[in-house]
Protein backbone atom coordinates (compact mmCIF):
# COMPACT_ATOMS: atom_id res chain seq x y z
CA UNK A 1 0.00 0.00 0.00
CA UNK A 2 2.83 2.37 0.81
CA UNK A 3 5.00 2.71 -2.30
CA UNK A 4 6.91 5.75 -1.12
CA UNK A 5 10.65 5.38 -0.41
CA UNK A 6 11.66 4.21 3.05
CA UNK A 7 12.92 7.59 4.27
CA UNK A 8 9.36 8.95 3.94
CA UNK A 9 8.52 7.27 7.19
CA UNK A 10 10.70 9.82 8.97
CA UNK A 11 8.47 12.70 7.82
CA UNK A 12 6.91 13.10 11.32
CA UNK A 13 10.40 13.46 12.79
CA UNK A 14 11.32 16.10 10.20
CA UNK A 15 8.07 18.04 10.76
CA UNK A 16 8.55 17.96 14.53
CA UNK A 17 12.24 18.81 14.28
CA UNK A 18 11.66 21.85 12.07
CA UNK A 19 8.81 23.06 14.26
CA UNK A 20 10.63 22.47 17.56
CA UNK A 21 13.86 24.15 16.43
CA UNK A 22 11.99 27.05 14.84
CA UNK A 23 9.84 27.58 17.93
CA UNK A 24 12.85 27.34 20.23
CA UNK A 25 14.84 29.89 18.23
CA UNK A 26 12.02 32.36 17.59
CA UNK A 27 10.23 32.35 20.94
CA UNK A 28 11.98 33.97 23.86
CA UNK A 29 9.14 34.01 26.36
CA UNK A 30 9.83 31.59 29.22
CA UNK A 31 6.09 31.00 29.82
CA UNK A 32 5.54 29.77 26.25
CA UNK A 33 8.78 27.82 26.28
CA UNK A 34 7.68 26.09 29.47
CA UNK A 35 4.33 25.09 27.97
CA UNK A 36 6.02 23.88 24.80
CA UNK A 37 8.47 21.83 26.89
CA UNK A 38 5.50 20.29 28.68
CA UNK A 39 3.95 19.45 25.30
CA UNK A 40 7.17 17.69 24.24
CA UNK A 41 7.36 15.77 27.52
CA UNK A 42 3.69 14.76 27.44
CA UNK A 43 4.20 13.96 23.78
CA UNK A 44 6.68 11.26 24.82
CA UNK A 45 4.05 9.64 27.05
CA UNK A 46 1.45 9.94 24.28
CA UNK A 47 3.77 8.42 21.67
CA UNK A 48 4.31 5.52 24.07
CA UNK A 49 0.62 5.04 24.76
CA UNK A 50 0.00 5.26 21.03
CA UNK A 51 2.16 2.16 20.55
CA UNK A 52 -0.19 0.30 22.83
CA UNK A 53 -3.47 1.79 21.63
CA UNK A 54 -2.91 2.64 18.02
CA UNK A 55 -0.62 -0.22 17.18
CA UNK A 56 -1.59 -3.09 19.45
CA UNK A 57 -5.24 -2.07 19.93
CA UNK A 58 -5.21 -2.19 23.73
CA UNK A 59 -6.36 0.68 25.94
CA UNK A 60 -4.60 1.57 29.17
CA UNK A 61 -6.89 3.58 31.42
CA UNK A 62 -4.30 4.01 34.13
CA UNK A 63 -1.26 5.17 32.26
CA UNK A 64 -0.72 8.10 34.61
CA UNK A 65 0.45 5.44 37.07
CA UNK A 66 3.68 5.20 35.11
CA UNK A 67 4.01 8.98 34.87
CA UNK A 68 3.54 9.00 38.64
CA UNK A 69 6.19 6.33 39.17
CA UNK A 70 8.64 8.21 36.95
CA UNK A 71 7.92 11.52 38.72
CA UNK A 72 8.15 10.19 42.24
CA UNK A 73 11.29 8.09 41.81
CA UNK A 74 13.28 11.21 40.85
CA UNK A 75 11.78 12.92 43.93
CA UNK A 76 12.04 10.10 46.49
CA UNK A 77 15.42 8.72 45.37
CA UNK A 78 17.41 11.87 46.20
CA UNK A 79 15.31 12.75 49.27
CA UNK A 80 15.38 9.33 50.97
CA UNK A 81 18.48 7.61 49.63
CA UNK A 82 20.68 10.46 48.48
CA UNK A 83 20.75 9.18 44.91
CA UNK A 84 21.47 11.31 41.86
CA UNK A 85 18.16 12.44 40.30
CA UNK A 86 19.32 11.45 36.81
CA UNK A 87 20.20 7.95 38.01
CA UNK A 88 16.69 7.75 39.49
CA UNK A 89 15.26 8.17 35.99
CA UNK A 90 16.68 4.72 35.27
CA UNK A 91 15.24 3.31 38.50
CA UNK A 92 11.84 4.70 37.51
CA UNK A 93 12.12 3.06 34.09
CA UNK A 94 13.06 -0.23 35.70
CA UNK A 95 10.19 -0.08 38.22
CA UNK A 96 7.62 0.85 35.57
CA UNK A 97 8.71 -1.90 33.20
CA UNK A 98 8.74 -4.44 36.02
CA UNK A 99 5.21 -3.50 37.10
CA UNK A 100 3.96 -3.53 33.51
CA UNK A 101 5.53 -6.94 33.03
CA UNK A 102 4.05 -8.45 36.19
CA UNK A 103 0.55 -7.07 35.52
CA UNK A 104 0.60 -7.43 31.76
CA UNK A 105 1.99 -10.94 31.42
CA UNK A 106 -1.02 -12.88 32.67
CA UNK A 107 -3.67 -10.34 31.64
CA UNK A 108 -2.58 -9.75 28.05
CA UNK A 109 -3.07 -13.42 27.26
CA UNK A 110 -6.78 -12.62 27.41
CA UNK A 111 -8.39 -10.97 24.43
CA UNK A 112 -10.47 -7.83 24.80
CA UNK A 113 -10.95 -5.30 27.54
CA UNK A 114 -9.18 -6.93 30.51
CA UNK A 115 -6.12 -4.70 30.30
CA UNK A 116 -8.34 -1.60 30.47
CA UNK A 117 -9.99 -2.71 33.68
CA UNK A 118 -6.68 -3.86 35.19
CA UNK A 119 -4.88 -0.60 34.32
CA UNK A 120 -7.79 1.46 35.64
CA UNK A 121 -7.26 -0.43 38.90
CA UNK A 122 -3.48 0.01 38.79
CA UNK A 123 -3.82 3.75 38.19
CA UNK A 124 -6.13 3.99 41.16
CA UNK A 125 -3.74 2.04 43.42
CA UNK A 126 -0.69 4.12 42.49
CA UNK A 127 -2.56 7.37 42.98
CA UNK A 128 -3.90 6.11 46.34
CA UNK A 129 -0.40 5.21 47.54
CA UNK A 130 0.97 8.60 46.44
CA UNK A 131 -1.73 10.51 48.30
CA UNK A 132 -1.68 8.27 51.41
CA UNK A 133 2.03 7.63 52.09
CA UNK A 134 2.60 11.19 53.23
CA UNK A 135 5.94 10.46 54.92
CA UNK A 136 7.43 9.20 51.69
CA UNK A 137 5.62 11.17 48.98
CA UNK A 138 4.47 14.36 50.69
CA UNK A 139 0.87 13.26 50.15
CA UNK A 140 -1.44 15.75 48.45
CA UNK A 141 1.23 18.48 48.72
CA UNK A 142 3.64 16.70 46.37
CA UNK A 143 7.40 16.49 46.79
CA UNK A 144 10.27 18.72 45.70
CA UNK A 145 12.82 17.34 43.22
CA UNK A 146 16.42 18.58 43.51
CA UNK A 147 17.90 20.21 40.41
CA UNK A 148 19.94 17.78 38.38
CA UNK A 149 23.49 18.73 37.33
CA UNK A 150 25.34 17.47 34.27
CA UNK A 151 29.11 18.21 34.14
CA UNK A 152 28.53 20.82 36.85
CA UNK A 153 25.87 22.56 34.71
CA UNK A 154 22.73 23.02 36.78
CA UNK A 155 19.66 22.05 34.73
CA UNK A 156 17.24 24.87 35.49
CA UNK A 157 15.26 27.40 33.50
CA UNK A 158 12.69 27.14 30.75
CA UNK A 159 15.24 27.57 27.93
CA UNK A 160 17.39 24.58 28.93
CA UNK A 161 14.43 22.32 29.59
CA UNK A 162 12.80 23.24 26.29
CA UNK A 163 15.78 21.83 24.38
CA UNK A 164 16.16 18.80 26.67
CA UNK A 165 12.49 17.85 26.24
CA UNK A 166 12.58 18.48 22.49
CA UNK A 167 15.69 16.31 22.10
CA UNK A 168 14.20 13.52 24.22
CA UNK A 169 10.99 13.64 22.18
CA UNK A 170 13.04 13.45 18.99
CA UNK A 171 14.77 10.29 20.20
CA UNK A 172 11.46 8.84 21.42
CA UNK A 173 9.81 9.52 18.06
CA UNK A 174 12.76 8.08 16.14
CA UNK A 175 12.58 4.86 18.17
CA UNK A 176 8.81 4.69 17.74
CA UNK A 177 9.04 5.10 13.95
CA UNK A 178 11.73 2.47 13.68
CA UNK A 179 9.66 0.14 15.80
CA UNK A 180 6.58 0.80 13.68
CA UNK A 181 8.46 -0.42 10.62
CA UNK A 182 10.14 -3.40 12.25
CA UNK A 183 8.70 -6.92 12.24
CA UNK A 184 7.47 -6.23 15.79
CA UNK A 185 5.65 -3.10 14.60
CA UNK A 186 4.00 -4.98 11.77
CA UNK A 187 3.00 -7.67 14.24
CA UNK A 188 1.41 -4.95 16.43
CA UNK A 189 -0.71 -3.73 13.55
CA UNK A 190 -1.82 -7.22 12.67
CA UNK A 191 -3.05 -7.56 16.27
CA UNK A 192 -5.06 -4.41 15.85
CA UNK A 193 -6.79 -5.78 12.78
CA UNK A 194 -7.49 -9.29 13.98
CA UNK A 195 -5.92 -11.15 16.85
CA UNK A 196 -7.12 -14.46 15.49
CA UNK A 197 -5.58 -13.86 12.08
CA UNK A 198 -2.35 -12.71 13.72
CA UNK A 199 -2.26 -15.87 15.83
CA UNK A 200 -2.88 -17.97 12.73
CA UNK A 201 0.17 -16.36 11.11
CA UNK A 202 2.28 -17.61 13.97
CA UNK A 203 2.55 -14.33 15.91
CA UNK A 204 2.71 -14.84 19.65
CA UNK A 205 -0.12 -12.40 20.32
CA UNK A 206 0.25 -12.24 24.09
CA UNK A 207 4.00 -11.65 23.93
CA UNK A 208 3.66 -8.88 21.32
CA UNK A 209 1.00 -7.07 23.31
CA UNK A 210 3.23 -7.38 26.37
CA UNK A 211 6.12 -5.74 24.50
CA UNK A 212 3.83 -2.87 23.52
CA UNK A 213 2.57 -2.46 27.09
CA UNK A 214 6.05 -2.51 28.64
CA UNK A 215 7.34 0.00 26.07
CA UNK A 216 4.37 2.27 26.70
CA UNK A 217 5.07 2.04 30.43
CA UNK A 218 8.71 2.96 29.86
CA UNK A 219 7.76 5.99 27.74
CA UNK A 220 5.25 7.08 30.39
CA UNK A 221 7.76 6.73 33.19
CA UNK A 222 10.43 8.64 31.30
CA UNK A 223 7.98 11.45 30.55
CA UNK A 224 7.03 11.56 34.22
CA UNK A 225 10.68 11.83 35.30
CA UNK A 226 11.28 14.56 32.74
CA UNK A 227 8.29 16.60 33.89
CA UNK A 228 9.24 16.26 37.57
CA UNK A 229 12.87 17.22 36.89
CA UNK A 230 11.76 20.18 34.80
CA UNK A 231 9.25 21.47 37.37
CA UNK A 232 11.52 20.61 40.29
CA UNK A 233 8.43 19.04 41.76
CA UNK A 234 6.51 15.75 41.70
CA UNK A 235 2.78 16.44 41.84
CA UNK A 236 0.06 13.91 42.72
CA UNK A 237 -2.01 15.38 39.86
CA UNK A 238 0.47 13.83 37.42
CA UNK A 239 -0.60 10.37 38.58
CA UNK A 240 -4.32 11.11 38.76
CA UNK A 241 -7.19 9.42 37.00
CA UNK A 242 -7.94 12.51 34.95
CA UNK A 243 -4.31 12.55 33.76
CA UNK A 244 -4.75 8.96 32.53
CA UNK A 245 -7.86 9.92 30.61
CA UNK A 246 -6.14 12.98 29.17
CA UNK A 247 -3.39 10.71 27.85
CA UNK A 248 -5.98 8.51 26.17
CA UNK A 249 -7.60 11.64 24.77
CA UNK A 250 -4.24 12.79 23.35
CA UNK A 251 -3.88 9.58 21.35
CA UNK A 252 -7.52 9.52 20.25
CA UNK A 253 -7.71 13.18 19.25
CA UNK A 254 -4.33 13.33 17.54
CA UNK A 255 -5.01 10.13 15.68
CA UNK A 256 -4.58 6.64 16.95
CA UNK A 257 -1.70 4.88 15.18
CA UNK A 258 0.05 8.08 14.12
CA UNK A 259 3.27 9.09 15.88
CA UNK A 260 2.88 12.71 14.83
CA UNK A 261 -0.78 12.53 15.86
CA UNK A 262 0.17 11.58 19.41
CA UNK A 263 2.32 14.72 19.72
CA UNK A 264 -0.40 16.89 18.15
CA UNK A 265 -2.89 15.39 20.61
CA UNK A 266 -0.54 16.18 23.48
CA UNK A 267 -0.25 19.77 22.23
CA UNK A 268 -4.04 20.12 22.00
CA UNK A 269 -4.63 18.79 25.52
CA UNK A 270 -1.75 20.66 27.21
CA UNK A 271 -2.66 23.97 25.58
CA UNK A 272 -6.37 23.43 26.33
CA UNK A 273 -5.68 22.78 29.99
CA UNK A 274 -3.69 26.05 30.11
CA UNK A 275 -6.58 27.87 28.46
CA UNK A 276 -9.02 26.24 30.86
CA UNK A 277 -7.12 27.19 33.99
CA UNK A 278 -9.65 29.95 34.56
CA UNK A 279 -12.61 27.79 33.48
CA UNK A 280 -11.57 24.78 35.48
CA UNK A 281 -15.16 23.66 36.06
CA UNK A 282 -15.70 22.98 32.36
CA UNK A 283 -12.59 20.89 31.89
CA UNK A 284 -14.06 17.47 32.72
CA UNK A 285 -17.13 18.12 30.59
CA UNK A 286 -15.10 19.30 27.64
CA UNK A 287 -12.58 16.46 27.69
CA UNK A 288 -15.40 13.91 27.93
CA UNK A 289 -17.28 15.53 25.07
CA UNK A 290 -14.18 15.79 22.87
CA UNK A 291 -13.26 12.16 23.41
CA UNK A 292 -16.78 11.04 22.50
CA UNK A 293 -17.10 13.25 19.43
CA UNK A 294 -13.73 12.19 18.05
CA UNK A 295 -14.42 8.51 18.71
CA UNK A 296 -17.87 8.63 17.13
CA UNK A 297 -17.41 11.02 14.21
CA UNK A 298 -13.69 11.36 13.51
CA UNK A 299 -12.28 8.06 14.62
CA UNK A 300 -9.09 8.58 12.63
CA UNK A 301 -8.18 11.64 14.69
CA UNK A 302 -6.65 14.92 13.52
CA UNK A 303 -3.43 13.89 11.80
CA UNK A 304 -4.53 10.75 9.88
CA UNK A 305 -7.83 12.54 9.11
CA UNK A 306 -5.98 15.46 7.54
CA UNK A 307 -3.58 13.14 5.71
CA UNK A 308 -6.57 11.30 4.29
CA UNK A 309 -8.17 14.55 3.13
CA UNK A 310 -4.96 15.68 1.46
CA UNK A 311 -4.43 12.26 -0.10
CA UNK A 312 -7.96 12.15 -1.50
CA UNK A 313 -7.51 15.30 -3.52
Amino acid at each position, binding site marked *: MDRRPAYWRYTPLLVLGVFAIGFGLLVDNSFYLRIAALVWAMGIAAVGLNMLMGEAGQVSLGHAAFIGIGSYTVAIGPAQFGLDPLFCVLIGLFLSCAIALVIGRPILRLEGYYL*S*VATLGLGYLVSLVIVSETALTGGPDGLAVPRATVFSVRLAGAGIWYWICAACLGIAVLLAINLQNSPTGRAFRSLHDSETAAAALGIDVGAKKLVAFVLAAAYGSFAGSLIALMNGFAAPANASFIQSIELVAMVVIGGSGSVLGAVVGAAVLVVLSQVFVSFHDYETLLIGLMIMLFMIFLRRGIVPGLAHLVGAR
Partner: protein
Amino acid sequence: MAEFLQFVFSGLTVGAIYALVALGFTLIYNASRVVNFAQGEFVMIGGVATAVLHTAGLPLLVAAAGAVAIAGLAGFLLHQFAIKPARDASIAALIIITMGASLLLRGLTQLVVDKQIHSIPAFSGEATIEVLGATLQPQTLWVIGGSIVVLAMLQFLLNRTLVGQALQAVAANPLAARLVGIKVSAMLALAFVISAVIGGVGGVLVTPITLTRYDVGTVLALKGFSAAMVGGMGSPLGAVIGGLFVGLLESFGAGYVSSTYKDAVAVIAMLVVLMVAPRGLIGHRSAERV
Protein backbone atom coordinates in the same frame (compact mmCIF):
# COMPACT_ATOMS: atom_id res chain seq x y z
CA MET B 1 -18.20 -10.99 68.05
CA ALA B 2 -19.99 -7.64 68.11
CA GLU B 3 -17.12 -6.14 66.12
CA PHE B 4 -17.14 -9.01 63.63
CA LEU B 5 -20.89 -8.64 63.15
CA GLN B 6 -20.47 -4.90 62.67
CA PHE B 7 -18.02 -5.51 59.83
CA VAL B 8 -20.43 -8.03 58.28
CA PHE B 9 -23.23 -5.46 58.30
CA SER B 10 -21.19 -2.73 56.67
CA GLY B 11 -19.66 -5.23 54.23
CA LEU B 12 -23.06 -6.43 53.09
CA THR B 13 -24.31 -2.85 52.70
CA VAL B 14 -21.54 -1.69 50.40
CA GLY B 15 -21.42 -5.16 48.83
CA ALA B 16 -25.07 -4.86 47.83
CA ILE B 17 -24.30 -1.62 45.98
CA TYR B 18 -21.25 -3.12 44.27
CA ALA B 19 -23.46 -6.04 43.28
CA LEU B 20 -25.99 -3.65 41.70
CA VAL B 21 -23.24 -1.87 39.75
CA ALA B 22 -21.77 -5.20 38.66
CA LEU B 23 -25.23 -6.41 37.66
CA GLY B 24 -25.90 -3.36 35.48
CA PHE B 25 -22.47 -3.73 33.95
CA THR B 26 -23.06 -7.46 33.24
CA LEU B 27 -26.45 -6.77 31.65
CA ILE B 28 -25.00 -4.30 29.14
CA TYR B 29 -21.97 -6.49 28.53
CA ASN B 30 -24.06 -9.57 27.80
CA ALA B 31 -26.44 -7.73 25.50
CA SER B 32 -23.91 -5.71 23.53
CA ARG B 33 -20.31 -6.74 24.47
CA VAL B 34 -19.82 -3.10 25.49
CA VAL B 35 -17.81 -2.62 28.67
CA ASN B 36 -19.64 0.35 30.12
CA PHE B 37 -17.20 2.48 32.09
CA ALA B 38 -20.01 4.98 32.77
CA GLN B 39 -21.89 2.51 34.98
CA GLY B 40 -20.86 4.25 38.21
CA GLU B 41 -22.28 7.56 36.99
CA PHE B 42 -25.81 6.13 37.07
CA VAL B 43 -25.41 5.47 40.79
CA MET B 44 -24.12 9.01 41.24
CA ILE B 45 -27.06 10.45 39.26
CA GLY B 46 -29.55 8.43 41.33
CA GLY B 47 -28.16 9.85 44.58
CA VAL B 48 -27.45 13.43 43.54
CA ALA B 49 -30.74 13.89 41.65
CA THR B 50 -32.76 12.55 44.59
CA ALA B 51 -30.98 14.96 46.93
CA VAL B 52 -31.58 17.93 44.62
CA LEU B 53 -35.23 17.12 43.95
CA HIS B 54 -35.88 16.45 47.65
CA THR B 55 -34.21 19.72 48.66
CA ALA B 56 -36.39 21.46 46.06
CA GLY B 57 -39.44 20.36 48.07
CA LEU B 58 -40.56 17.11 46.49
CA PRO B 59 -41.48 14.23 48.84
CA LEU B 60 -38.65 11.70 49.16
CA LEU B 61 -40.47 8.96 47.24
CA VAL B 62 -41.31 11.26 44.31
CA ALA B 63 -37.77 12.65 44.28
CA ALA B 64 -36.35 9.12 44.25
CA ALA B 65 -38.64 8.05 41.40
CA GLY B 66 -37.68 11.18 39.45
CA ALA B 67 -33.99 10.51 40.04
CA VAL B 68 -34.25 6.91 38.86
CA ALA B 69 -36.10 8.16 35.76
CA ILE B 70 -33.29 10.67 35.09
CA ALA B 71 -30.71 7.88 35.42
CA GLY B 72 -32.74 5.73 33.02
CA LEU B 73 -32.92 8.61 30.56
CA ALA B 74 -29.14 9.06 30.80
CA GLY B 75 -28.74 5.36 29.96
CA PHE B 76 -31.07 5.71 26.98
CA LEU B 77 -29.28 8.78 25.66
CA LEU B 78 -25.92 7.10 26.15
CA HIS B 79 -27.02 4.27 23.90
CA GLN B 80 -28.79 6.38 21.28
CA PHE B 81 -26.16 9.08 20.83
CA ALA B 82 -22.89 7.39 21.69
CA ILE B 83 -23.07 3.61 21.39
CA LYS B 84 -25.47 3.21 18.48
CA PRO B 85 -23.66 5.55 16.04
CA ALA B 86 -20.38 3.74 16.82
CA ARG B 87 -21.76 0.22 16.67
CA ASP B 88 -19.12 -1.03 14.25
CA ALA B 89 -16.25 0.37 16.32
CA SER B 90 -13.60 -1.77 17.99
CA ILE B 91 -13.72 -2.80 21.64
CA ALA B 92 -11.01 -0.23 22.36
CA ALA B 93 -13.05 2.56 20.72
CA LEU B 94 -16.19 1.61 22.66
CA ILE B 95 -14.24 1.58 25.92
CA ILE B 96 -13.00 5.10 25.18
CA ILE B 97 -16.50 6.27 24.28
CA THR B 98 -18.04 5.06 27.54
CA MET B 99 -15.12 6.59 29.44
CA GLY B 100 -15.81 9.88 27.66
CA ALA B 101 -19.50 9.55 28.53
CA SER B 102 -18.56 9.04 32.15
CA LEU B 103 -16.57 12.30 32.18
CA LEU B 104 -19.38 14.08 30.33
CA LEU B 105 -22.03 13.00 32.85
CA ARG B 106 -19.77 13.98 35.73
CA GLY B 107 -18.92 17.34 34.16
CA LEU B 108 -22.61 18.05 33.50
CA THR B 109 -23.57 17.19 37.07
CA GLN B 110 -20.83 19.45 38.36
CA LEU B 111 -22.15 22.32 36.24
CA VAL B 112 -25.91 21.78 36.59
CA VAL B 113 -25.86 20.89 40.29
CA ASP B 114 -22.58 21.72 42.09
CA LYS B 115 -19.48 20.14 43.61
CA GLN B 116 -20.91 19.83 47.13
CA ILE B 117 -21.53 16.65 49.07
CA HIS B 118 -25.22 15.74 49.06
CA SER B 119 -27.27 13.63 51.38
CA ILE B 120 -30.84 12.42 51.70
CA PRO B 121 -32.63 11.41 54.91
CA ALA B 122 -32.69 7.71 55.81
CA PHE B 123 -36.00 6.12 54.73
CA SER B 124 -37.06 5.00 58.20
CA GLY B 125 -35.23 7.24 60.62
CA GLU B 126 -31.79 7.18 62.16
CA ALA B 127 -32.62 5.16 65.31
CA THR B 128 -30.17 2.25 65.24
CA ILE B 129 -31.10 -1.33 66.04
CA GLU B 130 -28.98 -3.43 68.43
CA VAL B 131 -28.17 -6.92 67.12
CA LEU B 132 -25.96 -9.06 69.37
CA GLY B 133 -24.01 -6.01 70.49
CA ALA B 134 -23.53 -4.59 66.99
CA THR B 135 -25.47 -1.57 65.84
CA LEU B 136 -27.44 -1.72 62.64
CA GLN B 137 -28.69 1.31 60.75
CA PRO B 138 -32.23 0.76 59.46
CA GLN B 139 -31.04 2.03 56.07
CA THR B 140 -28.77 -1.03 55.83
CA LEU B 141 -31.91 -3.18 55.76
CA TRP B 142 -33.32 -0.95 53.02
CA VAL B 143 -30.16 -1.35 50.95
CA ILE B 144 -30.07 -5.13 51.29
CA GLY B 145 -33.84 -5.56 50.92
CA GLY B 146 -33.97 -3.15 47.98
CA SER B 147 -31.15 -5.00 46.23
CA ILE B 148 -32.95 -8.31 46.67
CA VAL B 149 -36.15 -6.80 45.20
CA VAL B 150 -34.19 -5.41 42.21
CA LEU B 151 -32.59 -8.79 41.67
CA ALA B 152 -35.92 -10.63 41.85
CA MET B 153 -37.54 -8.19 39.43
CA LEU B 154 -34.67 -8.55 37.00
CA GLN B 155 -34.90 -12.34 37.17
CA PHE B 156 -38.64 -12.14 36.55
CA LEU B 157 -38.18 -9.74 33.65
CA LEU B 158 -35.47 -11.80 31.97
CA ASN B 159 -37.03 -15.23 32.42
CA ARG B 160 -40.77 -14.73 32.60
CA THR B 161 -41.59 -11.99 30.09
CA LEU B 162 -41.45 -11.86 26.31
CA VAL B 163 -39.29 -8.73 26.35
CA GLY B 164 -36.85 -10.42 28.71
CA GLN B 165 -36.66 -13.45 26.47
CA ALA B 166 -36.01 -11.19 23.48
CA LEU B 167 -33.22 -9.48 25.42
CA GLN B 168 -31.64 -12.84 26.20
CA ALA B 169 -31.97 -13.84 22.54
CA VAL B 170 -30.07 -10.71 21.50
CA ALA B 171 -27.38 -11.47 24.05
CA ALA B 172 -27.04 -15.05 22.78
CA ASN B 173 -26.98 -14.28 19.07
CA PRO B 174 -27.87 -10.84 17.64
CA LEU B 175 -28.12 -12.06 14.04
CA ALA B 176 -30.44 -14.95 14.86
CA ALA B 177 -32.50 -12.63 17.04
CA ARG B 178 -32.89 -10.22 14.15
CA LEU B 179 -33.95 -13.07 11.86
CA VAL B 180 -36.82 -14.03 14.16
CA GLY B 181 -38.05 -10.43 14.16
CA ILE B 182 -36.53 -8.98 17.33
CA LYS B 183 -35.53 -5.32 17.07
CA VAL B 184 -31.93 -5.65 18.18
CA SER B 185 -31.29 -1.93 18.51
CA ALA B 186 -34.38 -1.42 20.68
CA MET B 187 -33.33 -4.33 22.89
CA LEU B 188 -29.85 -2.85 23.31
CA ALA B 189 -31.39 0.49 24.25
CA LEU B 190 -33.54 -1.37 26.77
CA ALA B 191 -30.47 -3.07 28.25
CA PHE B 192 -28.85 0.34 28.77
CA VAL B 193 -32.02 1.75 30.35
CA ILE B 194 -32.43 -1.22 32.71
CA SER B 195 -28.78 -1.02 33.72
CA ALA B 196 -29.06 2.71 34.34
CA VAL B 197 -32.24 2.22 36.38
CA ILE B 198 -30.56 -0.47 38.49
CA GLY B 199 -27.66 1.90 39.09
CA GLY B 200 -30.02 4.77 39.91
CA VAL B 201 -31.92 2.65 42.44
CA GLY B 202 -28.59 1.69 44.02
CA GLY B 203 -27.72 5.38 44.31
CA VAL B 204 -31.02 6.20 46.00
CA LEU B 205 -30.68 3.33 48.48
CA VAL B 206 -27.10 3.95 49.57
CA THR B 207 -26.89 7.76 49.61
CA PRO B 208 -28.36 8.12 53.14
CA ILE B 209 -25.38 6.04 54.40
CA THR B 210 -22.46 6.96 52.16
CA LEU B 211 -23.50 10.46 50.96
CA THR B 212 -22.79 11.36 47.36
CA ARG B 213 -21.07 13.89 45.14
CA TYR B 214 -20.56 14.48 41.41
CA ASP B 215 -17.32 12.50 41.34
CA VAL B 216 -18.21 9.26 43.18
CA GLY B 217 -18.91 7.40 39.93
CA THR B 218 -15.37 6.35 39.00
CA VAL B 219 -14.65 4.57 42.24
CA LEU B 220 -18.07 2.92 42.17
CA ALA B 221 -17.50 1.75 38.60
CA LEU B 222 -14.08 0.43 39.55
CA LYS B 223 -15.52 -1.51 42.51
CA GLY B 224 -18.38 -2.74 40.35
CA PHE B 225 -15.92 -4.04 37.75
CA SER B 226 -13.89 -5.61 40.50
CA ALA B 227 -17.03 -7.34 41.75
CA ALA B 228 -17.98 -8.52 38.27
CA MET B 229 -14.45 -9.78 37.57
CA VAL B 230 -14.12 -11.49 40.94
CA GLY B 231 -17.53 -13.10 40.54
CA GLY B 232 -16.97 -14.08 36.93
CA MET B 233 -17.54 -11.87 33.92
CA GLY B 234 -20.88 -12.23 32.21
CA SER B 235 -22.65 -14.09 34.98
CA PRO B 236 -25.43 -12.20 36.84
CA LEU B 237 -25.12 -14.60 39.78
CA GLY B 238 -21.36 -14.02 39.72
CA ALA B 239 -21.97 -10.25 39.80
CA VAL B 240 -24.05 -10.52 42.96
CA ILE B 241 -21.72 -12.96 44.72
CA GLY B 242 -18.69 -10.96 43.59
CA GLY B 243 -20.28 -7.75 44.90
CA LEU B 244 -21.02 -9.18 48.33
CA PHE B 245 -17.60 -10.87 48.48
CA VAL B 246 -15.75 -7.67 47.58
CA GLY B 247 -17.90 -5.65 50.01
CA LEU B 248 -17.16 -8.03 52.89
CA LEU B 249 -13.47 -8.20 52.02
CA GLU B 250 -13.29 -4.41 51.98
CA SER B 251 -15.10 -4.10 55.30
CA PHE B 252 -12.84 -6.65 57.03
CA GLY B 253 -9.77 -5.13 55.39
CA ALA B 254 -10.72 -1.70 56.72
CA GLY B 255 -11.52 -3.10 60.15
CA TYR B 256 -8.63 -5.46 60.76
CA VAL B 257 -5.84 -4.24 58.46
CA SER B 258 -5.83 -0.62 57.32
CA SER B 259 -8.63 1.85 56.77
CA THR B 260 -6.35 4.02 54.56
CA TYR B 261 -6.20 1.30 51.96
CA LYS B 262 -9.82 0.18 52.27
CA ASP B 263 -10.52 1.32 48.71
CA ALA B 264 -7.57 -0.69 47.44
CA VAL B 265 -8.96 -4.02 48.62
CA ALA B 266 -11.47 -4.45 45.80
CA VAL B 267 -8.92 -3.47 43.17
CA ILE B 268 -6.27 -5.84 44.51
CA ALA B 269 -8.84 -8.65 44.64
CA MET B 270 -9.67 -7.94 41.00
CA LEU B 271 -6.04 -7.87 39.89
CA VAL B 272 -5.35 -11.15 41.67
CA VAL B 273 -8.40 -12.80 40.10
CA LEU B 274 -7.47 -11.47 36.64
CA MET B 275 -3.95 -12.81 36.98
CA VAL B 276 -4.71 -16.14 38.59
CA ALA B 277 -8.20 -17.22 37.54
CA PRO B 278 -9.74 -14.89 34.95
CA ARG B 279 -13.00 -16.82 34.96
CA GLY B 280 -13.67 -15.59 38.48
CA LEU B 281 -15.50 -17.43 41.22
CA ILE B 282 -18.53 -18.43 39.14
CA GLY B 283 -17.46 -17.77 35.55
CA HIS B 284 -19.50 -20.27 33.56
CA ARG B 285 -18.42 -18.80 30.28
CA SER B 286 -14.83 -19.52 29.35
CA ALA B 287 -12.68 -16.41 29.11
CA GLU B 288 -11.62 -15.66 25.55
CA ARG B 289 -8.09 -16.98 25.56
CA VAL B 290 -6.16 -16.41 22.40
